[in-house]
């Protein structure tokens, strides 16, 4: 069992579908981030989910989905400055990574076109 159940948590939705839980987070968070299934939070909980997996920030509270095979999906909220900071850092890394990729693609596409003289020589 994950340590999450030992933490001080609030439940906002219980025994619902993953889709409804995701929509709740998207509608009720000040900031929404999307992570891959398997994203780790609170030391030993690996997020279970159907991509895109939404995680929300509301004040000091982290909103996330918690899935149990026999009970469905729950939306939980736990106060954690540390996890919120980690989530924002994770997002910043993703944006930086995609910007690098975009820069690389731009550099490749902006290489000078072959000159007529070079082609003619061939």
């Amino acid at each position, binding site marked *: *069992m*994950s340590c999450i159940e030992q933490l001080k948590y609030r439940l906002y939705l219980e025994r619902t*579908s*993953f*889709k409804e839980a995701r929509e709740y987070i998207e509608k009720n968070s000040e900031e929404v981030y999307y992570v*891959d*299934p*398997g994203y*780790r939070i609170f030391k*030993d909980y*690996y997020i*279970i*989910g*159907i*991509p895109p997996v939404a995680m929300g920030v509301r004040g000091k509270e982290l909103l996330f989905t918690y*899935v*149990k*095979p*026999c*009970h*469905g*999906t729950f939306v939980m909220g736990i106060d954690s400055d540390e996890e919120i900071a980690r989530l924002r850092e994770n997002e910043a890394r993703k944006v930086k990574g995609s910007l690098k990729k975009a820069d690389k693609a731009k550099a490749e596409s902006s290489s000078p076109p072959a000159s007529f003289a070079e082609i003619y020589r061939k």
Partner: protein
Amino acid sequence: MNQGKSALLVMGCPEVPVQISMVIYLAHKLKKAGWDVTVAGTNAPVKLLKVADPESYYVQKMADLDQTIADIVEKKYDYDICFAFMHSDAGMTYGATFSAISHARLFAVVFGKNAEALGESIDYPAEKIVAVATHNPGPLKNKIDKVAL
């Protein structure tokens, strides 16, 4: 031919009877074909399996579901094939997770009363084995027997 290759069977909630029956059947079948088989689940299905197979004749390796996910995410271990059993939204969600974290060839084994609708809603990479089966394992067994590994 399959010697040394690893198979993971992921059990969902055990409330639909055919699951345990099919897990034991498939684990035995894979083992006989040379696969190294691990069955993962939460406490409830693992207890059912241990009582049904007290001498570990059919299933030699059992693992906690959360720990299995942690090991795959942390790249401590992965499998060649994975059969994820599911009959509910939560089961589908676990299937999607395995599809995302593991490099295994994934089979989504969908059963229960709503198997067809659930099977249609799977939009992650997985080979679907779908049968409307709750008490009678026959339809699911027939489909599993047709899987070429």
